[in-house]
């Protein structure tokens, strides 16, 4: 396909994923969430991937008709509601915020996002894992019309990695009607836009439009994302996607803790489950989220069980996948051999020194983000403690638990620690970065409410008048 055709196909996929996502959220009863329009494209892409997975289980062929036909019917059923929503559009336009200082960071963000999205779609895939694992799986799944890893069980192909990232690639191929290794990466572009938009939606009511705009800019400009989004070596890798799902989960957690709506809790748990279906690092994140929810929920009114029930659907996929991994013996390479025997003090100390030495060499705050992760984490922690900001406390606990999980694996997993650090530290950092940024924004937001906006009251009024 030529470049304009590829970009057009990616745009079509984005629109389809957004539409499916909105319908999914409506069906689940979660469309009332403040984050719903922002997370819709991501939820739509994941939903299409899970739909293909389910089709493979029951033998329904993969094609655009079977994949999108049901959504057309659901869309027609909701047509009256859609018409009502559109008829209110003039009111939204009147309530839309007037130009303010947020337009400056958002304009700068657009200057970075546009070439990033072009690169995500147009650059070739050149990285080892993208070709050996993620794209190869997608080709095999597409050929067989189902998730089947029996031909890809060599340890170097990582059969223990979950299949959803590749299935999302399959959804781009089924929707656009052709196999393209370039279009396969379009889902990372969908996630980039979804997280950026969700940051704006989450922080605008609390921190004001300027802070929300700065948050969006800080996210899309992170140089650590460059190999995933622009320069290209990590194009087609799943780490960025896993980080985005964790970020969406953290943003929904923040929104739930702030507003107390059960549907935001449901969004947070669903995004964490999808993170666990994207990469194994999502599993400790899901546990960390559960711990934070259990600890902080006593501060909130009762959760409506019915609102959270649809979480069981992606949850069933995760349980099924973990059972498959167990039954087929697809052990996680990094975790195989992890045992308490490795808690030997001399070995632990030696590994800790290796990790500290590795980290110290990466504290270059100009070119890389490791130093900023530490700095932002520390300042967020201190501000959360000083200001008694419960939301920031919850998010920093989430970050610390997730980072502790990574550290524990580095300390306890057998093998060459230098090899593990050199081949994975940058990819794990990409997962932590959005979380740290969200935590920092949550700590700063209550302090900046009036900066760069007209007044807090006007800001909230415009916000409430805008469509959910």
């Amino acid at each position, binding site marked *: 396909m030529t470049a304009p055709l590829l970009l057009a196909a990616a745009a079509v996929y984005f629109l389809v994923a957004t539409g499916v996502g909105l319908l999914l959220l409506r069906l689940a009863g979660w469309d009332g969430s403040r984050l719903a329009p922002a997370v819709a494209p991501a939820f739509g892409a994941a939903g299409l991937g899970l739909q293909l997975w389910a089709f493979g289980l029951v033998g329904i062929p993969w094609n655009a008709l079977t994949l999108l036909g049901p959504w057309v019917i659901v869309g027609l059923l909701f047509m009256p509601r859609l018409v009502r929503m559109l008829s209110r559009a003039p009111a939204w336009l009147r309530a839309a915020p007037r130009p303010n200082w947020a337009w400056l960071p958002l304009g700068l963000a657009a200057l970075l996002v546009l070439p990033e999205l*072009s690169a995500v779609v147009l650059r070739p895939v050149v990285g080892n894992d993208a070709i050996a694992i993620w794209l190869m799986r997608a080709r095999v799944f597409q050929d067989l019309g189902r998730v089947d890893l029996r031909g890809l069980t060599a340890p170097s192909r990582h059969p223990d990695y979950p299949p959803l990232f590749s299935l999302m690639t399959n959804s781009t191929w089924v929707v656009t009607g052709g196999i393209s290794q370039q279009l396969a990466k379009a889902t990372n572009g969908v996630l980039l836009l979804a997280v950026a938009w969700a940051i704006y939606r989450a922080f605008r009511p609390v921190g004001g439009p300027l802070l929300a705009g700065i948050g969006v800019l*800080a996210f899309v400009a992170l140089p650590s994302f460059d190999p995933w989004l*622009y320069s290209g070596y990590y194009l087609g890798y799943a780490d960025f996607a896993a980080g985005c799902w964790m970020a969406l989960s953290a943003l929904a957690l923040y929104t739930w803790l702030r507003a107390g709506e059960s549907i935001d809790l449901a969004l947070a748990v669903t995004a964490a489950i999808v993170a666990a279906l994207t990469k194994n690092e999502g599993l400790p994140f899901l546990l960390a989220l559960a711990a934070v929810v259990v600890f902080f929920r006593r501060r909130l009114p009762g959760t409506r069980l019915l609102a959270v029930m649809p979480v069981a659907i992606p949850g069933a996929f995760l349980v099924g996948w973990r059972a498959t991994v167990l039954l087929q013996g697809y052990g996680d390479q990094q975790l195989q051999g992890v045992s308490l025997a490795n808690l030997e003090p001399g070995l632990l100390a030696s590994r800790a020194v290796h990790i500290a030495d590795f980290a110290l060499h990466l504290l270059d*705050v100009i070119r890389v983000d490791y130093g900023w992760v530490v700095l932002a984490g520390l*300042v967020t922690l201190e501000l959360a403690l000083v200001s008694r900001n419960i939301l920031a406390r919850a998010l920093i606990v989430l970050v610390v638990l997730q980072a502790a999980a990574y550290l524990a694996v580095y300390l306890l997993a057998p093998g060459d620690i230098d090899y593990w650090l050199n081949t994975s530290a940058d990819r794990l950092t990409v997962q932590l970065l959005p979380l740290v940024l969200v935590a920092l924004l949550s700590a700063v937001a209550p302090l*900046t409410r009036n900066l760069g906006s007209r007044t807090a009251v006007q800001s909230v009024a415009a916000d409430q008048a805008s469509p959910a």
Partner: protein
Amino acid sequence: MNDDGKPARRLGGPVGVAAIAVLLAWATRSVVVEGLAIYGAGAPPAPWSSAAQATQVDPLQGALTSLADRLPPGATVNVAAPTADQPTAEYWATYFLFPRRVRITETPTLDTPGLVIVNAPERPATPAGYQEVVAVRQDPGWLAAFVRVAGP
């Protein structure tokens, strides 16, 4: 800050000011670094330029794609590569030639419709009965792909 110190309190005191400063500094530095990475003099070629195409960026990918265009889906391809290069050769060949069968060897054999030679010290000569599809210098050696035009 004015005399009554209200702005400082509104911004959460020194810790709050530090947190805002960290956020602004992080964002500013990111915009400068990533802006230069995309628009600066040493930036990689624009994604839509010909220099960003697979054949330029990844010659093995380009060679395999060209070969796949000339072989039926049921064909077998022999990929000859030094031992150290065999994992990459296998991953690339199985993906870019899919669903064609791939056989990895150290020395080339002439019993398959497609033949790829990875990292040869010199430009490989075209074997009898084959036609050269691609021959390109790929550091540190030569990469070549051939398709059979007549039976051995």
